[in-house]
């Protein structure tokens, strides 16, 4: 009976003018026409509701190129802690943008920079980034060199760095083959560290720590050759990246110049239609001293923390060479959420031949990633290593 009553109410509500029609109706067609006539007397514009109109306005703002302000979560240097920041993007042509942004952390890490991006060069196969800015890190950890360092021996240093760089990335064949080159000029001004632990100069001297107190100007040039079949570096479920990057850091004063070669391999192996993804990464950094020059301690390879050796403090391991191995078993929850069980292993050594997986510091963990097709706006991970737990919040994919 409830259904019947509901039906009656429905009909009455939908066709109130039936009351007027009752005496005149002689056919089904006439009845319907009278209802149409009734509605014709009370037509209203077909307009979206308030909620839809509001969402439409927001969507239009995003899609019209008029969305200028954005959040900026990147701090000046890893280890700075929770970061707040904002940026303002302006199209300077149909495709090219200029972004001005800044961030700050409670520990005083500051970054202020501007970046010009031209993403459609060489028939849409090249992207040019020109970046200039200044940053300050107030309490970067230094624990000593090598695998024998202890987390209890932390010291802090600070630096400020003005920088100006240009980087050109080209896929000459449209995809897969990546060529990347860049030039940067910057000055690292290393100084005393802040925070609860001793400043680095209180523990070390320039004789025991190369580059202590140095303020070198670097002309940093780099070139990469790589194979990249990922759908996007920001989020992918398949594909691989294999690349070699050669860096040259030239100190015009001839004191702190060096070369560095980075090797990186990333492979994603989808299983059962990407229900699971085995993601593997190997990353090695090797440095080469220039004759008669030193590599400053703060330029030596290390691990930044949130994206590599995740259970350990930022910059916990440092030496002239480093090796990072990461494996993740990712599980797709839905189109927007992914889980991951992972293991990281990292080691450093003064000599390349001494990089040994047996000596690695390792961690394991679980992570959750909220992602789109191209990017990972939020990554949350809980991890545990030999020195305790780590909690990672990041706005990028780990690899």
């Amino acid at each position, binding site marked *: 009976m409830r259904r019947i009553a509901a*039906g009656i109410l429905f009909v009455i509500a939908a066709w109130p003018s039936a009351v007027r029609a009752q005496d005149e109706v002689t056919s089904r067609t006439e009845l319907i026409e009278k209802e149409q006539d009734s509605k014709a007397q009370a*037509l209203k514009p077909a307009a979206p509701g308030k909620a839809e109109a509001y969402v439409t306005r927001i969507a239009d703002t995003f899609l019209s190129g008029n969305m200028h302000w954005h959040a900026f979560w990147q701090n000046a240097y890893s280890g700075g802690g929770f970061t707040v920041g904002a940026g303002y993007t302006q199209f300077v042509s149909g495709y090219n943008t200029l972004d001005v942004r800044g961030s700050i952390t409670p520990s005083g890490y500051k970054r202020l920079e501007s970046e010009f991006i031209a993403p459609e060069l060489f028939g849409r196969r090249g992207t040019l980034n020109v970046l200039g800015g200044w940053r300050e890190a107030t309490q970067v950890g230094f624990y000593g060199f090598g695998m024998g360092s202890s987390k209890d021996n932390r010291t802090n240093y600070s630096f400020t760095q003005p920088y100006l760089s240009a980087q050109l990335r080209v896929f000459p064949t449209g995809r897969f083959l990546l060529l990347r080159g860049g030039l940067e000029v910057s000055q690292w001004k290393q100084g005393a560290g802040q925070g609860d632990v001793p400043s680095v100069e209180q523990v070390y001297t320039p004789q025991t720590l190369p580059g202590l107190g140095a303020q070198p100007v670097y002309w940093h040039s780099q070139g990469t050759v790589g194979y990249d079949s990922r759908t996007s570096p920001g989020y992918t479920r398949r594909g691989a990246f294999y690349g070699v990057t050669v860096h040259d850091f030239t100190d015009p004063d001839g004191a702190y110049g060096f070369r560095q070669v980075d090797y990186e391999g990333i492979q994603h192996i989808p299983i059962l239609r990407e229900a699971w993804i085995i993601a593997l990464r190997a990353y090695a950094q090797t440095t080469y001293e220039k004759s008669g020059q030193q590599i400053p301690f703060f330029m030596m390879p290390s691990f930044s923390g949130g994206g590599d050796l995740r259970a350990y403090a930022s910059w916990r391991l440092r030496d002239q060479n480093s090796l990072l191995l990461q494996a993740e078993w990712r599980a797709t929850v839905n189109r927007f959420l992914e889980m991951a069980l992972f293991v990281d292993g990292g080691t450093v050594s003064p000599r390349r031949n001494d990089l040994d997986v047996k000596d690695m510091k390792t961690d394991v963990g679980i992570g959750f990633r909220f992602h789109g097709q191209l990017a990972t706006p939020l990554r949350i991970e809980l991890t545990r290593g030999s020195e305790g737990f780590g909690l990672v919040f990041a706005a990028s994919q780990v690899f």
Partner: protein
Amino acid sequence: MRTRIAAFVILGGLATTVFTSTPAFFDDDPISREPESRSAANAKPLNIELFFEYSYNLFVNASRRPSERRAGNINTIDEVPDSSWFTNRVGTTPISPEQLARGVNSDAAPAPEKWVLLREKTAGTNPGFTARDANGVTWFLQFDAPEFPEASSAAVEIATKLFWGLGYNQVETFITRFDPAHVEIDSKATYKRPSGARTPFTRDDITRILERAARNADGTYRASAGRLLPGKVLGSFRYAGTRSDDPNDLVPHEHRRDLRALRVFGAWTNLVDWKAGNTLDVLVEEEGRSIIKHYLQDVGSSFGMANNLHEWDMGWEYYYDGPAAKRRFLTYGFGLSPWQTVPYTSYPSIGNFEGDRFDPTIWKPQTPVQPYIEMRADDAFWAARRVMAFSDDLIRAAVHTGQYTDGAAEQHMAAVIIKRRDAIGRAYLPAINPIVSPRLDAAGRLTFQNAAVDAGFAEAPTSYRAAWLRFDNATAQTRPLAETRSATTSMPAPTELASIAAGGFVEIDLAAESAAHPSWNVPIRTHFKRTADGWKLVGLERMADRPAANVPAGTGQRP
């Protein structure tokens, strides 16, 4: 009683709901055409925001319970009359394979000797243009993705033919050729940049678009061309409610059977993208009146060709599917979903489309619109009969319009569509009392058919049972006459039927007794009017709102 009959049959019993002075059946029942009597000339374009629509569908509609309300645009014999939404074709009208292959196409194909570009294609994932051909006719061109040559354009062609045959208004589409060497850019053509600015269309913009398209060996491109519709475009239609500026739009769209049936038709073709943006309302002049004609303008997201082939869950899960996501979350992905293991035969020109594991009852579009939620068993039965009306030859004719260069791909596509057709019939025809086409001849013999048995999807019942009642069309009161039984689909009327004079009505509740199908015990309700020539079927309710008095316990009203 008469209230029960009329309350849910909007086109078939509106007045009788409220007024006892009107009859249950009019002389023009059952109507074959939904009247559109008033001008909608003042209707204005409507833009439906995609993000809001998706969010509403996924987070409101997905948890919505169906109202169980009878479809509102059916006539008194449970059929959908022709309208500005729908035209009865395959299943009611003889349609030859040649007619289906032609479909809505009534005019010449594009003249591809020269194209004049007007603007880029802004909706959907496949690249394309709006362009004028050598004859000056405007077309919407859509190319295939490089990884899947022929796939998208073939899907558009085939789906357009099938949906035309099913009864929907379709856009004229052809597969054509696009030669960049014979392209001009209209002087007023513009291209929308990421900055939001529209600036003059350039040669480089052509290259930009064609970079995402499958290129033929001779440098040309295969494209699907959709003809610009005549009339004033009013934007998309909503899958719920009515247009407040259209006087002829009386039935809430979620209660239109032709839209509810998309759940079955969509499952058949794997049409997953039901966004409003793929529909179109157009103001046209017909019989001297402006009416709004409603199109399914883009049915190309069919046969596994939605966005890309890595969206394996298309047709199996909504974009966001709470229960499935919860299962995978709690089991770390070990709670497998069917789409993770279903095998596909791989052809570059065919998407993820198969017929062996296909189950129409669990099929899902990208987002659930309200008619999808509201579909009842009688709607599904009606839709399944329409699908089953497509013969193998009709299906092959439709598939042939896809112009696959690989004959094996064409055969595979047709075979899968045939398998899915049969799966739909197997799922929905036996699920509810499948008695169809009741006839009462002048001699008083009642005959009918059993759609499930005739299709080979069920064993014949042990017997059929008919309850005969005298029906007063003025008061809707009934008085039992007799009950008859038969082991076949034919039975004589009781002698009492002779007492009904011309102009009188008889109500017959027809059921089948089958141990395998208890739901068949729930009778369909038919009404016949005695005419000078015999008996005319004027009423049929497959799921009668007033339960029959002689239904065995435990059969349930809804199978």
